């Protein structure tokens, strides 16, 4: 069904394009979702000194690899945005696919990491630390999956030169996912 955008979508009294504005509000709500979970985690982590022994079993190498992967995928997302700004939809789509490849790599590393940990006996119910570990990283992984699906749609459109402004919005979302991981990494892997 052909869909014509209403005039409302084309107005911009704030000076920020509506799509980007909505994305910022979405991120504000995401901040409080992750914030609620991470604040709960931090409180428990400080209140439970015995979790240090549990946290020692997390795999810093896997976490570091994943950080590199996510930072690099952020780079390709911003390069996609740069290409879209230049009006080069094909190049933007290529960079978006690279970003999605980064997301896939992230998930593969994560699944190997988790398989190993579960095999070692560090399951969800082992202690509060592991519950939070799987809960927070899992919620983040869900965002990685959602973001890559969204970027897939944007990339298909961008390759045809349509809706290039969405490349930026998808990128902003992706950088947010990256920022969440930037905080999850020290919280779960480094502070032991």
């Amino acid at each position, binding site marked *: *069904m*052909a*869909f*014509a955008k*209403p*005039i*409302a*979508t084309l*107005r*911009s*009294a*704030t000076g*920020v394009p*509506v799509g980007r*504005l*909505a994305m910022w*509000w*979405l991120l*504000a*709500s*995401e*901040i*409080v*979702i*992750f*914030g*609620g*979970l991470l*604040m*709960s985690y931090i*409180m*428990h982590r400080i209140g*439970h000194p015995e979790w240090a022994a549990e946290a020692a079993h997390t795999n810093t190498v896997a976490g570091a690899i994943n950080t590199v992967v996510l930072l690099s995928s952020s780079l390709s997302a911003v390069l996609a945005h740069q290409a879209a700004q230049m009006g080069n939809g094909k190049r933007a789509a290529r960079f978006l696919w690279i970003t999605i490849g980064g997301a896939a790599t992230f998930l593969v590393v994560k699944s190997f990491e988790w398989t190993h940990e579960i095999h070692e006996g560090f399951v*969800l*119910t082992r*202690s*509060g630390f592991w*519950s*939070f570990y799987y*809960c927070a990283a899992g*919620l983040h992984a869900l965002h990685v999956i959602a973001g890559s699906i969204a970027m897939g749609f944007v990339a298909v459109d961008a390759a045809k030169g349509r809706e290039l402004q969405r490349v930026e919005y998808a990128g902003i979302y992706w950088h947010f996912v990256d920022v969440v991981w930037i905080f999850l990494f020290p919280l779960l892997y480094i502070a032991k």
Partner: protein
Amino acid sequence: MSNAAPTATAPHAHEPGHAPDGHSHDHHDHHAPQSFFQKYLFSTDHKMIAQQYMWTGVAMALIGGFLAYAFRMQLAFPDKWIPGYGYMSSLEYNTAVTNHGTIMIFWFAMPVLIAAFGNLLIPLMIGCDDMVFPRINRLSYQIFLLSAIILISSFFVKGGGFNGAWTAYPPLSANAEYNMAGTGSTLWVLAVALEFVAFLLGGINFITTAMSARAPGMRLWDMPLVVWMIVIASILFMASVGPLIAGAVMLLFDQNFGTFFFNPERGGDPVLWQHLFWFFGHPEVYVVLLPAMGMSGDIIAVFSRKKIFAYKTLLYTVFATGIISFFVWAHHQFIAGIDPRMANIFTVTTLIISVPIAEMCFLFIATLYGGSIRLTVPMLWALSFVAEFLLGGVTGIFLGASGADIYFHDTYFVIAHFHYTFVPIAVIGFFMGFTFWFPKMYGKMLNETLGKIHFWITILGFNMIFIPLFFTGMWGDHRRIYNYSHFPELHRVALQDLRIVATVGLLIMISAQAIFLFNVIKTFRAKQENPGPNPWHSNTLDWSAPSPPPHGNFAELPTVFRGPYEYSHPERESDFWPQNEPPPGSST
């Protein structure tokens, strides 16, 4: 911009009585004749989505009302056969109470006040043709509908619906061994989470639309109160719901995967859930209050034919309310084991938040003062909203003081208090908005006499339910008891009589809704002349669109020249001055 913008003194004639959907307007070429499904289920038109939200909400309210009827009958006449329900077990009682609360707040107050009126009013009042993201809007309703279906289906799974109260405190909510409703609890949490997603999507749409799609000439301070308030309510919702979504994930894990986020025996903390819940739960009160407050403000201004008193001050008090509402949540937990020093802080903030709310009421009264008041049905609802909500607010002071709360907590006093806030918000708010914007939505006028009869009986019934409950609460009636005859100290004739009075009040209130339905159906079926775009002689832009507004709302998108409340301007002949009417000296 030409003078074609209608000045409602001359209700323009180009809309014949029953133009059902305004097919004559064609500046949106995608508006081809649609099949039933396209029109009613997959429409992206904000007005249709508003209707969907409204009638889904009303249908859910009927279910919630039926549950209330069932458990009130059980309380008044313990263990007797309840007409239309049967015998009620203690477990069923808990399920009924839990789902009554959940449905009335999340599936009636939220969809009707924010989603329905937000969808209907925001594009109309800021003078644009639709929401900025129509398809996200449609998705929001579809997710909402899915959540409603999941909630209803949770009644019919093995073990019955969730019964851990609408606040879902663990460990009762987290462990099927305690609440005996494994699948039901999971479905309940899932439904609530989906519903939040739906309102997040809707809220982003409302905020973005009001921020960026206003008509040319409309500044932020030219937006009508109800638009402001729905936007602020959406922001509050969005900023507060996150921790609860995180909490819902944790609760789902506790229920299904055996984690112990909220299990104190393994290092979890049940108080954490209460914090996560009420960090959302208290702003939520203001999320539903503000749209109703905004509607009553608009209606009071229209029917007093006066500028709203201190429009900007009113909005500043709303901002203050919004900010302070994030500092009061723990007053729900005074006896839950929070640190007494924190209880002191939260007592003070709670008492402070009554100041801006009281100021709003004063400003409405000041608007009335010296106005030429017209007691139409919407005005009656608006006035009763302020009066009844005031009672709810005043009794809240007792509960907000941590000392008094130790006695009142979990008694019927609390129930009476929050029903004096939520019933005005949800029920009175709905009737207020519905009767006021009915001509706009359907191009017909409701019967005033029937409306007034309905109003008075509903208000009588409502007060008859909850005034007695203040007294039983002060006497010590605990909330979550399904049969008081098991408790000798509460099983007294005087108390039981009060409980029966409350139940009779509920029966009166519910039966009064038959008058309302009769009125609506009669109006729908009657052949009636279209009252024109502006039957109430209101200033805001929604009344310059034809009734009902066609797809795309306005024949020509309006330009705004002044604020929304220019009533009884001394230099004008008519006592109102629509926002889109060009100033007398303008050349174009």
